[in-house]
């Protein structure tokens, strides 16, 4: 089965990103396919590479990046939500005249159409939020 995942909240503040991550891991372990993980609202903050959580805590951003690398996951950060909240890749930073970019490895910035497409192409869409 192909799953589309929507994550509506950022790392740590809400459990959404954790639950989504564990769900995705379990789905992969069962041999399912993750069509896309789409990050919206504050969920875009899961895609910043600038987090430095305490050493003895889980590193939410890093483990998304690692899971993406291991399983070739498509982690998409919504461009509109990202612009509001200050998540940029190098191209976006240049385009908007910003002096830095902060997108973490394994994530890409794209439009809301990617979420709709995931809803269309996947067998199930699961929403994680507050």
């Amino acid at each position, binding site marked *: 089965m192909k799953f589309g995942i929507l994550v509506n909240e950022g790392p740590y503040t809400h*459990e959404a990103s954790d639950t989504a991550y564990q769900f995705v891991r379990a789905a992969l372990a069962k041999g399912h396919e993750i069509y896309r993980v789409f990050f919206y609202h504050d969920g875009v903050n899961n895609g910043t590479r600038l987090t430095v959580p305490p050493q003895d805590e889980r590193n939410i951003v890093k483990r998304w990046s690692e899971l993406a690398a291991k399983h070739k996951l498509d982690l998409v950060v919504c461009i509109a939500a990202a612009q509001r909240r200050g998540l940029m890749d190098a191209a976006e930073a240049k385009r908007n005249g910003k002096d830095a970019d902060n997108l973490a490895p394994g994530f890409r910035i794209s439009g809301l159409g990617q979420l709709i497409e995931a809803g269309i192409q996947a067998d199930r869409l699961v929403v994680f939020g507050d």
Partner: protein
Amino acid sequence: MLHTVNKSPFEHRALETCLKFARQGAAVLLIEDGVYAAARDTAVSKRVQEALKTVSIYALKPDVEARGMQHRVMDGIRLVDYGGFVDLVAEHNAVQSWL
């Protein structure tokens, strides 16, 4: 349909709303703070017991254990792990998340 509820029933209306719209034969999975609704002897237990007559109710075990509720889960509510969560999603035609 599978419904998920992630809010405590004491502070939020998500569970109440979910049960209002869940149809006979649906499945309700309590996750995150929603697992508190699975506990015995609370102000909502009676409501939840009543709901068990028409819908199946599950609770996500890691969330139950994290909150120390594992010995308080009422009869009739099944605990599942994340794998079980995945299975529930696969088994139902769609998922509605009551946030």
